[in-house]
């Protein structure tokens, strides 16, 4: 009799926990915000209004900070945690952090050259020289050599950069750091860097950079490809490591991830070996604690389970919403990595990640 009662109570509690409404909170990057809100809208429908996600697009830095302070269930960031941060998180909370990729983005050189209708070709070295201020004019032989059939007006170059801290800047400077030793030595990579050319102008946000580029003949800047495409801004092709000039179209961005990925997916996708990949690409990441119970934001196992199911849905079914919103989808290999990481997630020792992924 007693046994039956316990079973009954267990069943009832299981039933209620499965039916209970769950509300999850995340914070972080602005770049994937449109696709994230699409995911969360669709997922609400998929789960019959049971799992609701509130996402605050406060920037990658803010997302990482909130994640470390454990005020959110998950963070979202354009760049993964570095080794130091990973070690600190493990030391302070007892749980490693997972950086789960869910979407790919790319950064393109945008420019304003009156009369030029063909797409210009660039190499990393030339872009680095332009953004270092070494190349000052559009009629520089280095640019002409890459674009033999284009008549480029002899305008002085104005370099336009993001003045706000941004994952876009990180990806762009990460690429330039890899291709140019001079860049690595003088500027380096970061969400905000110390821009050195004399002919530079900083614009706030994607719209600020695009606005300055549009209004300034001879300007060159960099934008997220999503923004450049949606706003019809002219952008150039960039030569990848295999020597091909690549336009940042969705398959080329996805292809950039066709490389050997490390187990934790914390990898820079700029200048990869992929022969048909666009060289200035990057993952965006969900930041998750491996032991969800170590994140103070999680109050119950039901929450943890709902969250893991959401993660699995995003890297599998949810991927079909990427391309209509001009975000590149994960490669099969990256998806397998993401699922492998999700299956490591536990809650109070229970391997809920494995259970959910195995379903």
């Amino acid at each position, binding site marked *: 009799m007693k046994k039956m009662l316990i079973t009954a109570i267990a069943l009832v509690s299981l039933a209620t926990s499965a039916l209970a409404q769950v509300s999850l909170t995340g914070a972080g990057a602005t770049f994937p915000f449109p696709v994230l809100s699409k995911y969360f809208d669709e997922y609400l429908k998929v789960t019959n209004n049971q799992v609701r996600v509130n996402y605050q697009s406060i*920037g990658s*830095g803010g997302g990482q900070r909130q994640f470390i302070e454990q005020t959110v269930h998950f963070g979202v960031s354009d*760049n993964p945690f570095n080794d130091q941060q990973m070690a600190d998180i493990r030391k302070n909370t007892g749980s490693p952090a997972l950086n789960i990729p869910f979407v790919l983005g790319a950064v393109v050189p945008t420019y304003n050259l009156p009369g030029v209708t063909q797409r210009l070709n660039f190499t990393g070295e030339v872009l680095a020289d332009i953004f270092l201020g070494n190349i000052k004019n559009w009629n520089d032989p280095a640019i002409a050599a890459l674009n033999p059939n284009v008549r480029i007006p002899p305008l002085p170059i104005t370099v336009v950069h993001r003045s*706000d*801290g941004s994952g876009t800047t990180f990806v762009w400077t990460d690429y330039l750091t890899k291709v140019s030793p001079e860049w690595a030595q*003088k500027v380096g990579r970061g969400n905000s*860097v110390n821009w050195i050319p004399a002919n*530079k*102008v900083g614009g*706030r946000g994607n719209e600020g950079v695009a606005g300055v580029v549009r209004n300034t003949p001879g300007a060159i800047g960099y934008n997220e490809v999503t923004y450049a495409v949606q706003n019809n801004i002219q952008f150039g092709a960039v030569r990848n490591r295999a020597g091909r000039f690549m336009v940042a179209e969705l398959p080329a961005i996805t292809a950039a991830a066709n490389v050997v990925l490390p187990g934790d997916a914390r990898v820079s996708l700029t200048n990869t070996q992929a022969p048909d990949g666009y060289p200035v690409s990057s993952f965006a990441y969900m930041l998750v604690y491996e032991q969800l119970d170590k994140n103070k934001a999680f109050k119950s196992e039901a929450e943890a389970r709902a969250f893991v199911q959401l993660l699995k849905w995003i890297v599998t079914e949810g991927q079909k919403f990427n391309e209509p919103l001009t975000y590149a989808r994960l490669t099969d290999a990256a998806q397998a990595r993401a699922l492998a990481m999700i299956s490591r997630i536990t809650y109070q020792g229970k391997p809920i990640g494995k259970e959910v992924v195995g379903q």
Partner: protein
Amino acid sequence: MQQAPAQSSIIKRQPSAIFRVLGDRIFLAVVLALALSIVALTLGLGYYLYLGGSQTINKEGFFGFLTGTTWDPALKIEFGIWPYVSGTIITSLAALVLSVPVALAAAIFTAEYAPRWLAGFINYLVDLMAAVPSVVYGIWGIFVLAPFLREVFYLPVFVWAAENAPWLSRYLGNPSGYGLFTGIVVLSSMVIPFTAALSRDAINLVPAPQREGAYALGATRWEVIQTAILPYARGGIFAGAMLALGRALGETMAVAMVIGNGNVLPYTLFGPASTMPAVIALELKEAVEDLHYSAIIGVGFYLFLVAFIVNATASYLLNKLKVEGQRA
């Protein structure tokens, strides 16, 4: 008839003993506590800004942080805020210099010359200027003002200088349209209404006998304004200018959108510059490194100090400028 006794009973009713004895003291305590809370709020704000920025301020030194000219959060992880401090001071003072004559002219015209309907209309527009959100000024700056200034001012001057006075080019900088001077122009148009409104009120408050006396002595209209009105109203005009300066020091978004946000000294007239509020607003969001984050809060602390110094100086000068016997 029934109401009258009820009223009188209210009037006649004595306050209860506790209020009779303690009323004044309770009131004093409440007022004091509220007044002190403002002091606590201000000091607390400064203290917590210092606390947040202390990591970087301690690393760079109190004056090293202030006078350092390199702000490199990526490679050298080195933070000096002098480019931002000087940018803030230059843009604010220059905006004040540009805006005060215009604002004062508008105030004198509406208070002394304009027919009533026109004065009302101008005053309405001036108030409207103050109500426009700063991000709207920023958009206007990006899409209208900057290209306009580039075409009619920067490029002609730049080209002329390149041909006739090459030494000048060094001080002019890149005429892209997004830079120090555009920032100053946007800023000055934003602060005009503050000076204009306070000056107008100050001029309206000049007592009629003062004017009449001047007219009686045979002064022309211009002489009346010059000798009787402006000296009397100077306190109010100065207060308006200081309000505008305070606003200019803290203005963030519109400036950040057009100033070009360069932090390499020396600044040039047309080239990019940056200000303290702008760097806070722009870099805080994505500041991942602790030292960078702390440096940005440190900028907030120094901005607090700059605002404090400016306000203290302003109120000192205001006291000196007060006309004998004038109220407020």
